[in-house]
Each structure stands twice: as C-alpha cells, then as structure tokens.
C-alpha cells in the first residue's frame, strides 16, 4: 500500500487538482492523518476535501515554486517553509480567524519562530525526530548490543557491513541524511562548509555499498514485512512499521531509537499558498486540526507528537509515555533542528547526494 501511495505522491506531482466552490485541496505527507480527520472536517463544514500526498519536501518545493498548484493547505517542514516564504509562496496566516490558536505550545511557537519570524506563514502541525528503526531479532543476531541505538548501525562501515545482508535503507533526502552524518562526525549539522560536506560525503560513500535503497516512505512496509532490517526514517513512520509488524504477527519485532549521538527534530507546518483558491476553507481546516481532540486523534494514529498543549490529555497514555514519540529531557538535549540552506550550498549538497546515491 505504501508503494502505491508513493507512486500516487510522485505522479500527483504531475497533476493539478481543480478547485471549485466549497472544495478544499490538501497536500500532505503520506500516512499523516487519522482515519477520521478528513471525514470529520467534511461532516462539520460540508466542504469537500481533495486529499493528495507526497513523501519528500523536495517534491513539494518543486511544486510550490512552480506556482498555481491549486492547493489550499500544504505541509512543508519548517526549514523548507522558511525558504519558500522568501520566494513569496505563502499567504500570511490570519490568526484572528483561528479560534483554537491559543492551544499551541508557546515554547514550540518560539522555536519555529527562529525560521518563521512572528509565526507569520505557518502553524505547527506535528513534530518528528529522524532516527533509526530496526528489526530487533535480525539486528541483535548480527551486531554487538552496544552498537544498537547508535548511529554506528548505519554510519560505521564495519557494523553496517554486518547488517547489509538483511537490508539497510535511508531517506532519499540530502538535507536529512547529510545532517546526521555531520553530527556523527562531530561537526555542526547545519554547516555549509565545503570541507565538512566533503567529509560527510566520504562517510556516506564508505557505507554506500551496504545500503539497499534510498526512499522516503517505502521502508514502512518493507521493515514491517521483514524485507529490510534497518531504516533511517521519520519517528512516526517507523513506529507505524512497529505496529504493522506486531499486527501481522509474523514474529517480526521492530523498535525505534533516537540515536544517542543526537538526531534531527523537525516540525511540519500547515501553510496556505498565496494563490490558494479557497483560503477561507483553508483557515477552517487549520482550525479544525487545532481542536484538541482532532490533534490528539492524529497523534494516537500516526505516532507523531503534536504541539497542541490542550491535546495532551486526550493522547493515549502509552503514546504519551513512549520515549520515541515524546522524548525524555536528556534525549531532547541532544536533538538539533535544521536551518534553510543558501542556493549555492544547495547545489553542492544535492550534487553530493546524487554521487552518494549512485555510488560514483
């Protein structure tokens, strides 16, 4: 199913939805709402929702910079949203129209305001960490226990070599794979220095032969089915893989670790394109998401933490107490967030990424 969603995402990039009166076009990440999030909004407002999905910030950005996408609500990560806002992609959020805006955690609003001054263009939707999901049995058969829960699993070529036969996968995103590599090397994950990038590239090339594929959503099913055994991915996606494996009951046990060296924490933002056909409906939709029960239901379903203080009491205890979803303080201290890149560094970064992916 994820494979189908992936294709839908990739090829939806080529289609433009048509917006009419009373319709709302939402473009969100795959597997990122609860089962009743959309239908609940449709029932409440009578607005018909067209829901499309993508699985990488880069694909979303390509569409946004083209313009006239026909979407009313899109969900970029904060560092991508900051750059797109510079290009004039987004309309300012009318906070007066959002009756539930006060539910948002002021501390988190402050953190995202570093990239979005005054919280002008985006409303935080969910938070995630980029860590490692792994098949507990296969991994502990192959490597020492002290390597588990460390970036050594994928970045140490000796350890990665032992795991290669059961399958390692990585996200197909230059920014989100190079940053942890820099961090692993003890460098600033937001460095734009050419030498630092070169070192990160060397590191990734050294473990490249052990990587089965680079993809940003396929690993959810593959990990759950036992096709692969170690995936660098988004916290909620990997926790969904854990649940799917448990449901299938085939003896596969998946665990998620925020590696002890530190990992990226990210924020996905609800934003309204400047040329959205139906901005009023978009605001209604964002306000619907900010309802404590709605936010909590999404978190309970997709295992991403929400920034909604009023929602916390509605979140299931087992989700709230899961360190992979709501990390404890000592883990939190090691987390880093990404900043937007300059255009010139971006070209060197993506160029290095192509070299890493193709292994040449």
């Amino acid at each position: 199913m994820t494979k189908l969603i992936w294709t839908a995402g990739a090829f939806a990039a080529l289609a433009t939805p048509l917006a009419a009166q009373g319709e709302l076009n939402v473009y969100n990440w795959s597997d990122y709402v609860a089962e009743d999030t959309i239908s609940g909004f449709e029932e409440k407002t009578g607005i018909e929702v067209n829901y499309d999905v993508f699985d990488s910030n880069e694909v979303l950005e390509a569409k946004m910079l083209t313009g006239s996408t026909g979407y009313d609500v899109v969900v970029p990560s904060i560092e991508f949203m900051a750059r797109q806002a510079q290009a004039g992609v987004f309309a300012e959020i009318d906070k007066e129209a959002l009756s539930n805006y006060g539910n948002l955690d002021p501390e988190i609003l402050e953190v995202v305001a570093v990239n979005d001054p005054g919280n002008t263009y985006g409303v935080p939707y969910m938070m995630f960490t980029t860590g490692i999901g792994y098949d507990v049995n296969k991994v502990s058969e192959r490597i020492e226990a002290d390597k588990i829960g460390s970036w050594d699993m994928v970045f140490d070529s000796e350890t990665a070599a032992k795991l290669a036969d059961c399958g390692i996968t990585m996200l197909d995103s230059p920014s989100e794979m190079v940053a942890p590599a820099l961090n692993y090397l003890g460098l600033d994950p937001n460095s734009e220095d050419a030498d630092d990038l070169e070192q990160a590239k060397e590191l990734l090339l050294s473990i490249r032969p052990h990587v089965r594929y680079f993809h940003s959503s396929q690993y959810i099913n593959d990990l759950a089915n036992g096709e692969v055994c170690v995936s660098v991915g988004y916290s909620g996606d990997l926790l969904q893989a854990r649940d799917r494996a448990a449901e299938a009951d085939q003896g596969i046990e998946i665990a998620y670790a925020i590696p002890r060296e530190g990992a990226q924490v990210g924020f996905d933002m609800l934003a309204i394109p400047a040329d959205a056909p139906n901005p009023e409906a978009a605001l209604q939709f964002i306000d619907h998401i900010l309802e404590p029960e709605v936010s909590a239901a999404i978190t309970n379903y997709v295992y991403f933490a929400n920034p909604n203080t009023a929602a916390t009491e509605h979140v299931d205890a087992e989700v709230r107490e899961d360190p992979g979803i709501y990390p404890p303080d000592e883990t939190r201290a090691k987390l880093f967030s990404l900043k937007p890149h300059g255009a010139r560094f971006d070209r060197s970064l993506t160029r290095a990424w192509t070299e890493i992916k193709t292994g040449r």
Partner: protein
Amino acid sequence: MSALLNLSRAWSGRALVVAVPILWLGLFFALPFLVVAKISLSELAIAMPPYLPLAEWADGALNIVLNFGNYLFLLSDGLYIAAYLESLKIAAISTLFTLLIGYPMAYVIAMARPDRRNLLLMLVVLPFWTSFLLRVYAWIGFLKSNGIINNMLMALGITDAPLQLIQTDFAVYIGITYTYLPFMILPLYANLSRLDRSHLEAAADLGARPLTTFLTVTLPQSAGGIVAGCMLVFIPAVGEFVIPALLGGPDTLMIGRVLWDEFFSNRDWPVASAVAVVMLLVLIGPILLLRRAQAREEG
C-alpha cells in the same frame, strides 16, 4: 484573370493543408522546446519560478543575460556524461532484446493465415488496454525478494536464499523489453507482410536451404522494418524515467532519472532544462536514421 484567381485559390488551399501540421509542430514542439532552451540559459534563484529572467528592462535599456554555465556544468561533471552513456547502453541492450524476441513473433504473424493475423495482432496490442504504470508495477510483484519468481525458484530448490532481482539493471532491461515489445513487432510485421513470397519460392527452387533463404532474402528485405522498430524502441527508452525509477536500483543511472532529480529533488530548473536540451541533441542521430529508414520504406 480567372487563371490567376484559380492559381491563388490553389495556393491558399495548399498553404492551409501545410499550415495545420506546421502550426501543430510549432505549438506543441517548437514553443515548449524554446521555453526549455530559454530556462537552460538562465540562473538558479529562490523565487517563483525558481530562476532569474533572461531579459530585463533597466534604465530604459533591454539587458539580456545568457548563462552558458549550466551547459559547462554538464560537461565538467562526469556524472552527466556517465548518465547519457549509461542510458544509451541500457536502451541499446533493451532494443537488442526486443529485436530478438520481436522478430520471430512478427515473422510468425506475417506468415500466418490472413484470417488469423488480425487476432494475433490484437493479442500484441492487448496489453495496452491496461495502464503502463500497472504493467510495470506487476513486475515488482514478480521480481521482489518474496515475489513469484523467487518463491518458485526456492520451492523448486534451485536457490536457497532469494535472488536480488529487483532494484537491478537487469530488472530495467526486463521492464523496457516487455513494455516496448509491441513497438518492435508492429513495424516489423508491416514490413514482413509485404514480403514477396515468390522470392522465397525462387530461392527454394534454386536450392537454397531455409536458413540461407532467410539470411540472404528475408533479412535484407526487412532491414527497413528492423531499423524503424529499433528506433521506435531505442529513442523513447533513452529518456525512460518510470521503469528505472520503479524497477532499477539506486545506482541505475539513467538520464530520465537525473532529469527528474534535477527538477524535483534539486529544484534546479536551469540545469534540468540543459539536461533535456542535450538529450534532444544526443537523439538527433537516431532520429535521422529513423527518417531515412521511413523514406526508404515509402520509396
């Protein structure tokens, strides 16, 4: 006077007939190509759209800035040249496979009883009734680690562990050969069905064995069909994106994928456009070959 009128009427009629295809070409080929060529000469920027305009009015003067840096970048970086060469290689090998499989099929259809030919041709075209994407997807089901082929091989005891079939160049060859086969069979059939059978009888009467007849009579006469079929497969296969993206591995380097990456992942429209322009230039040779083959077929 009336002769002049007739002449001008005839001329305008002819102009109209020619104008339609020219307009079509202009609107749907030349114009988009010029837009792409224009973007390939501009500079990357964080804007909507993400490149700087070529021409700008400044102080009452028109400033045109052409940036050939994108082309120099393609040449200076080994990746792009490697991707073009790899695409040509993958397309050429897949074309050879389609020819080896398609020729016997076209031959059998052309030699079949006339009342059966239509049925056989329909069977060749039948796969087009389902979506191209679904047909490529079906191959994922065949080739993946716990897919049909691997399960069969393991059940028969031929292998112990699943073979890595998907995410390899081999899977890309299969995908291209499978999806493009009809484009090989149809022109070959058109050519072979016009083959004069009396030549074959004459060869037999003169004592040639079937193999000799095939090599000296049938094969040379079908050369036009072979070239047409090969080019119809080869030209689109060079720029193929979907098949390498779904069946190929991360190291399957094809220009269609590089183009997608430049455009969607790197948001670098100028370089993506330059890649597209160069791809067209690379394909001019095979396209001319196809034109010559078609001209010979008609003449």
